[in-house]
């Protein structure tokens, strides 16, 4: 600062660094791959209504809730969610809600690292000139299906004569090992610093791709309806040719998925923020920090992801493909190579885009195991390296299931819905109730505003206490009613409960999630004994 209190050149540099770090840490696979996949599945424009409502009534308020509860727990010497829940709510059941905050990041890690591998594979294939499948758009779809083993279980294990560059398993192993080396050796911070500069490059790259998509026109004159305006229309029009706007809005699963996407991309309801916030100082800002991270995330997701992937998929592959994309994450891996194929220096842009996306994914996956590491250290007294090795074993088993049961990416989809949407939803509901009704909204508000760089409007307090819980529980009620009474909204689709009844792979995946949950419940039970003993010892020492 100079004498007049104006920021100096050096201060501007550090502020820019902060902005790059905060917004960079928010970017991940959810923005460019998961969001477009969901928007396409739920008819684009109609999806944006529950999406923005969820951002305003759930995402931002619950992000503040998590940061506040985490810092509150840290001030009392706790870092893991089960311990923080137990601190806030003196009930024997409280720490066991922490099972959710353990299984969510750990199970998501099992498939997230696999998709990270796809990004790395695509980047290296572009680098080696192995992504040129010509002008036929469906060739990219065929390659993706072959690469991930879409047609049958175990198919992803075959490379079809392409060597390591055609092996999804090889890239999974490479990413898995890389992640564990970085976590095991505690090198995450160096990578995060590197990525805070790489992420703006990803945004510039995405802007270039967006410009190319918006100038595509009608690439195939024999299919005039597949033009960029119709592609944008599919993404943004409130009504579509198939169903009316009101009919689309009457789908409770869309509201659940929209809230789930907000939670997924903001990392809210994961149990990650609460652990990281516990390491903050008591006068650090959490209000503007979380808002800036959310704003960076939303810009990448809506302004870039929303203008690129769905319109490009529509233009090259048509309406039927967009309405039934190859899994939530698969849309981008089929649509984007078509765009790069139509770009000047498309090979270079393709490499840069997928490589930078891989780096964005790495920054996210490196933080996913920290909540469980914190529990193992705090509750069981394990060292960091032992904790990482233990988690490495569990996640390796889970990732093996994801890659082996590759037909229709069934296990990945099951994990992504039941953990990446449903469990996150449950944890977010529990946390907002805990903050508003147990910790007390006044106490929580004081925690949130200490050191805050912005003044959060007073009415947000009432949103957190009343509106968010009612909103979450109402959607949940309607979703249950749809699952049990109404059936699917689209003909030929199965409800989630019907999928469980029909598919042994889905039941197997859910059984695996149950086993992981049971394991963490046992670990939490052991940790509670340790925390109780420590508290008794402290009391005895005091008397």
């Amino acid at each position, binding site marked *: 600062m100079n004498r007049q209190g104006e920021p100096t050149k050096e201060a501007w540099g550090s502020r820019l660094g902060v902005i790059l770090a905060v917004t960079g840490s928010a970017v991940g696979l959810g923005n460019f791959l998961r969001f477009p996949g969901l928007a396409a599945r739920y008819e684009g424009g109609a999806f944006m209504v529950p999406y923005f409502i969820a951002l305003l009534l759930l995402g931002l308020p619950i992000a503040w809730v998590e940061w506040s509860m985490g810092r509150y727990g840290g001030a009392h010497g706790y870092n893991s969610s089960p311990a923080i829940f137990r601190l806030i709510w003196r009930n024997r059941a409280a720490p066991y809600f922490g099972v959710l905050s353990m299984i969510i990041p750990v199970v998501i890690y099992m498939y997230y690292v696999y998709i990270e591998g796809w990004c790395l594979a695509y980047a290296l294939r572009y680098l080696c000139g192995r992504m040129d499948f010509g002008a036929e758009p469906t060739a990219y779809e065929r390659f993706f299906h072959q690469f991930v083993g879409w047609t049958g279980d175990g198919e992803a294990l075959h490379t079809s004569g392409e060597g390591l560059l055609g092996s999804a398993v090889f890239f999974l192993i490479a990413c898995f090992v890389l992640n564990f080396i970085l976590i095991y050796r505690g090198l995450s911070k160096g990578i995060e*610093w590197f990525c805070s500069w790489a992420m703006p490059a990803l945004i510039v790259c995405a802007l270039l791709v967006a410009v190319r998509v918006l100038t595509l026109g009608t690439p195939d004159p024999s299919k005039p309806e597949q033009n960029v305006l119709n592609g944008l229309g599919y993404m943004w029009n*409130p009504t579509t040719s198939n169903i009316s706007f009101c009919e689309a809005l009457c789908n409770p699963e869309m509201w659940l998925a929209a809230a789930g996407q907000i939670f997924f991309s903001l990392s809210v309801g994961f149990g990650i923020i609460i652990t990281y916030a516990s390491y903050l100082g008591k006068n650090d*800002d959490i209000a503007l920090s979380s808002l*800036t991270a959310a704003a960076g995330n939303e810009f990448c997701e809506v302004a870039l992801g929303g203008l690129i992937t769905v319109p490009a998929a529509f233009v090259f592959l048509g309406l039927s493909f967009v309405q039934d994309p190859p899994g939530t994450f698969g849309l981008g891996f089929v649509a984007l190579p078509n765009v790069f194929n139509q770009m000047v220096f498309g090979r270079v842009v393709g490499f840069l885009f997928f490589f930078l996306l891989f780096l964005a994914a790495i920054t996210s996956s490196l933080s996913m195991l920290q909540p469980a590491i914190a529990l193992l250290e705090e509750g069981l007294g394990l060292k960091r390296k032992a904790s990482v090795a233990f988690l490495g074993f569990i996640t390796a088993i889970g990732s093996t299931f994801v890659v082996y049961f590759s037909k229709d990416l069934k296990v990945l989809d099951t994990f992504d819905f039941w953990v990446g949407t449903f469990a996150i939803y449950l944890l977010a509901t529990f946390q907002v109730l805990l903050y508003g009704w147990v910790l007390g909204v006044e106490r929580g508000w004081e925690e949130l505003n200490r050191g805050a*760089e912005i003044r959060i409007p007073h009415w947000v307090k009432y949103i957190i206490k009343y509106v968010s819980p009612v909103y979450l529980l109402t959607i949940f009620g309607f979703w249950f009613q749809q699952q049990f009474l109404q059936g699917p909204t689209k003909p030929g689709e199965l409800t989630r409960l019907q999928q469980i009844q029909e598919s042994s792979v889905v039941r197997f995946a859910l059984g695996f999630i149950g086993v992981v949950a049971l394991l963490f419940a046992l670990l939490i039970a052991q940790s509670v004994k340790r925390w109780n003993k420590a508290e008794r010892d402290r009391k005895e020492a005091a008397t």
Partner: protein
Amino acid sequence: MTLGGWVVMCLSVGGVTALLIWCFYKVFTTPGAAERIHSQADIETPDVREEE
């Protein structure tokens, strides 16, 4: 692309861009903000330091 589509797109893209610009403005103009603002990226977990 209908008129409704243009409206939804402009509001959505414009809204998130405006929010991002406002956040940047606050970070650049609030004295001391750079020292007290954090992300997961710059929070070093104490267990890493202990093992070093």
